[in-house]
């Protein structure tokens, strides 16, 4: 009798701290989702346009940055606009190699949908952009997007 009285249902696991844990996770994700983009080594302000389209699949886009080196690199690389591929400065002739690398990272079926996005500073001269365009043609990467922001005012 005495034994039976003492017998209790096994205590429920205390889950009162679970919300706290999940909230912590939530905050962690909210704070850290800054999707790792390559560190920009060039200063760029993209041009504004009205007829812009969204790039659909972000995973199928490779970026080429063009602009004057940012302040920390100015003493080393000067102020003339430069090309940045991934995390390093590059010359136009390195573009096909870069495209090849981007392609090999994707599956065969995705390759025709690969788009190159040129993010160039609006003050850049067309010479360097043209060089990149020619290299892209050489690499047979023909889908191109000139990154621009939306212009709201009409002139």
């Amino acid at each position, binding site marked *: 009798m005495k034994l039976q009285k003492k017998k209790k249902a096994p205590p429920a696991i205390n889950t009162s701290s679970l919300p706290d844990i999940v909230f912590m996770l*939530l905050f962690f994700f909210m704070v850290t989702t800054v999707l790792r983009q390559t560190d920009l080594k060039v200063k760029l302000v993209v041009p504004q*346009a009205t007829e*812009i389209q969204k790039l659909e699949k972000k995973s199928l886009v490779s970026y080429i940055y063009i602009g004057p080196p940012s302040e920390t690199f100015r003493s080393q690389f000067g102020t003339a606009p430069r090309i940045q591929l991934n995390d390093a400065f590059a010359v136009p002739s390195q573009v096909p190699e870069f495209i090849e690398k981007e392609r090999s990272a994707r599956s065969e079926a995705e390759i025709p949908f690969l788009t190159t996005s040129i993010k160039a500073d609006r*003050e850049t001269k067309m010479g360097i952009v043209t060089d990149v365009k020619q290299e892209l*043609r050489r690499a047979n990467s023909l889908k191109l*997007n*000139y990154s621009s922001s939306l212009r709201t005012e009409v002139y």
Partner: protein
Amino acid sequence: MKKNRATPEVNAGSMADIAFLLLIFFLVTTTIDTDKGISIRLPPMPEIDQPEENIKLKERNVLKILVNSADQLLVDGKLVTIKELKKATKNFIDNPSKDLTLSESPQKAVVSLKNDRGTSYNTYIQVHNELKAAYNELREAKAQAEYGRALEKLTKEQGDEIRDYYRQVISEAEPEDAGGGN
């Protein structure tokens, strides 16, 4: 005396579910600055052994746009500003007045764009933007006239028909280095 029972605890079991819901909501909706821009398609590189074919186009079917290193525009020999470009392009493509110096039909119209190496990227984008705007406006007008609806509300076939009627052909020549910039 009977033991005084503690007030029953508030059931916090569902709190976790609510938090998870929030977590998933944030995970799904955080789109980090979507990439937008002007899409174009580059022409393929000509084969090396392929003889350079010069497709003969009638003079009147080509709208020649030249941009120099001072960002000035020359459209079919006339100096125009960016603001006037869209109107000029629309007029060229559609040719409502059947002008003999403008295109025969929208399908035959070709826009030829040539810029200098010293042209600023911004001007180049603005030119592309105006050309695209010209085509988009013509398509939109056609969709309204033919189906009485906005272009994006049409079925795929109808939309393709209109896009094909006003198909955008922009030919870009190799830029020249005339100096004065770069």
